[in-house]
C-alpha cells in the first residue's frame, strides 16, 4: 500500500491578486526602441501592468495577501508562516515578509522570510508550506509572489516584464477551497536568466531561456507529478503554467498533451505582462475565480536558474462562498489607467536622477 501523500492534508483557504492600475501598450515600447511589429507580436502580448511610483513588490504583495486572508476568513494570529517570493526586493537586505506580516497583524509569532529563485521563489514557499501545514507545525501559511519586474530598457524582455502579485493562504484540507493532491519539484543548474548583485537589470540567454530551461523544467516537473499520481492530461479540467509571454504556456501545454481549452482560462500575461513570481499564481487565481467544485487543476510555476514545481489540486464546494469576498482577477485586470512611455519610465525608475 502506498503511503498517503502529505499534500492531501492541505488545501487553499484563500487566494488574492493585486494588479497595479497603470498599463502601457506594447506599441509604445516598440516605437520607443525601434522594434518591428513582427518582432514583438510573436510574444502574443497586448499591454503590461506598471507599478506606480509609490508601489513596490512589498506593497503589492500586501494587497494580494490581504485579499487572500479575506477569502480565507482566517484569524491572522493562526498564521504561522509568511513566505514572500520576489526577485525585486525593495531592500536587498531586510525582509519584506516582516513588513507584510506586521501589516496583516500576523506578527510576532510566525515564520517570515523572503525567498529568491527567480520567478519560482513563491512556489518554493508554497511547497514548503504544504510540508509545514501537513506536519502540523503550523496551522496556516501565507505564500506571496510579487514582483516589479525589471528589464533593461530596449531589451526584448521589456515587452513582458511587469508588476503584480498573487497570494495564497494554505491550511488544513478541511474547509479549504481546493485540496492538494500532490506536488513535484524539478531543478537543475541552468543559467538561462540572472541578475548579478548590484546590477539593476537581469540578463538572459534569449532562446536558451526556452528549450533547456522553461520547457525542460516544466515538462520534467509536470511529467514527474503525473507519473506519481497516475494522471494524464485529460484528467485535468485546467492547466496553468508560468507565462513569460502569451505564447510559451500554450506551447508547453501542447508539448505535454493539453488542449488549448484546458489552458486558456489560466493565461493572463497578454493583458498584464509577466509578473514573474505572480505569473502562474495569478493564472491559478483566475481559474479559482471561475472553477466549479470537483474541477482538477494542474499548476506549474517556473523559475530561471532553473526549476519548476507541479501541483495537482481539486476544487471543493467551499469555493463558492469564498469567491465573492475579494476582487476577481478579471476585475483587477480591467481597472486600468493607460500611460505613455515617459510616465512608465519615470514610475519604474528608468530615468537617472541624482538625489540631492
Amino acid at each position: 500500500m502506498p503511503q498517503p501523500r502529505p499534500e492531501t492534508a492541505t488545501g487553499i483557504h484563500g487566494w488574492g491578486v493585486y494588479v497595479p492600475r497603470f498599463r502601457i501598450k506594447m506599441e509604445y515600447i516598440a516605437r520607443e526602441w525601434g522594434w518591428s511589429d513582427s518582432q514583438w507580436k510573436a510574444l502574443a502580448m497586448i499591454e503590461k501592468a506598471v507599478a506606480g511610483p509609490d508601489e513596490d513588490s512589498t506593497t503589492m504583495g500586501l494587497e494580494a495577501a490581504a485579499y487572500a486572508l479575506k477569502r480565507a476568513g482566517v484569524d491572522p494570529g493562526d498564521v504561522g508562516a509568511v513566505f514572500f517570493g520576489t526577485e525585486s526586493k525593495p531592500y536587498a537586505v531586510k525582509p519584506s515578509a516582516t513588513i507584510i506580516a506586521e501589516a496583516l497583524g500576523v506578527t510576532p509569532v510566525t515564520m517570515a522570510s523572503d525567498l529568491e529563485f527567480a520567478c519560482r521563489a513563491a512556489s518554493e514557499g508554497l511547497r514548503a508550506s504544504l510540508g509545514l501545514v501537513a506536519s502540523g507545525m503550523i496551522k496556516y501559511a501565507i505564500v506571496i509572489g510579487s514582483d516589479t519586474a525589471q528589464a533593461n530598457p530596449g531589451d526584448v524582455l521589456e515587452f513582458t516584464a511587469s508588476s503584480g502579485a498573487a497570494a495564497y493562504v494554505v491550511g488544513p484540507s478541511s474547509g479549504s477551497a481546493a485540496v492538494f493532491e500532490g506536488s513535484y519539484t524539478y531543478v537543475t543548474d541552468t543559467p538561462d536568466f540572472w541578475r548579478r548583485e548590484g546590477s539593476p537589470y537581469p540578463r538572459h540567454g534569449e532562446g536558451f531561456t526556452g528549450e533547456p530551461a522553461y520547457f525542460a523544467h516544466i515538462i520534467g516537473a509536470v511529467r514527474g507529478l503525473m507519473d506519481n499520481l497516475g494522471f494524464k492530461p485529460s484528467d485535468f479540467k485546467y492547466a496553468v503554467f508560468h507565462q513569460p509571454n502569451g505564447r510559451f504556456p500554450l506551447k508547453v501545454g501542447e508539448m505535454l498533451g493539453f488542449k488549448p481549452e484546458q489552458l486558456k482560462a489560466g493565461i493572463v500575461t497578454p493583458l498584464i505582462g509577466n509578473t514573474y513570481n505572480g505569473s502562474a499564481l495569478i493564472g491559478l487565481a483566475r481559474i479559482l475565480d471561475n472553477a466549479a467544485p470537483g474541477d482538477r487543476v494542474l499548476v506549474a510555476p517556473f523559475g530561471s536558474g532553473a526549476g519548476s514545481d507541479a501541483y495537482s489540486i481539486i476544487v471543493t464546494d467551499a469555493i463558492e462562498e469564498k469567491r465573492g469576498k475579494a476582487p476577481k482577477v478579471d476585475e483587477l485586470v480591467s481597472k486600468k489607467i493607460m500611460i505613455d512611455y515617459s510616465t512608465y519610465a519615470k514610475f519604474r525608475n528608468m530615468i537617472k536622477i541624482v538625489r540631492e
Partner: protein
Amino acid sequence: MTGLSVPAVWRGRIHRYRLVAGKCNSCGRIHYPPSHSCPHCGSRGLAEVELPRMGRLVSYSIVYSVPSESRSKAPVILGLVDLGVARVISEITDAGPEDISVGMQVEAVFRRITEDGETGVLVYGVKFRPVKEA
C-alpha cells in the same frame, strides 16, 4: 537624505500600516493617529480601533510645491477623507488632478509614503485611491 529617524518610523508602523486609531472610552470619539489622550475631551482612557478602509473625499489640494523626494509623484493630491467614524488626511494615489472630485469614493491602499534617500529606510503606510468602476 531626508533625515528620517528610524526608531520614529518604526514606532509609527502599526497605525500607518493598519489604520489603527484611538477611541475614547469617555466621549466615544475616534481620532487618527492614536494619541496619548483624547484630542477632543482630554480623557486618557483610550482603546485602539481599526478604521474603515472605504471613505469619501471631503476636500483636496493638488500640491505642486513638493520636496524633491516627492517629485516623481508630483503633483501630490492631498485629501481630507471621511471614513464615517473619523476623518483622516492622506495622500490620494493612482490618480491625476483630472480624476479627482469632492465627494468621490476612495479606498485605502498600502503604499510607500516616503524614503530616506537612496540608501535609507522605506516608510510604508496607508494612502487612499479612487474606487474605480471595472
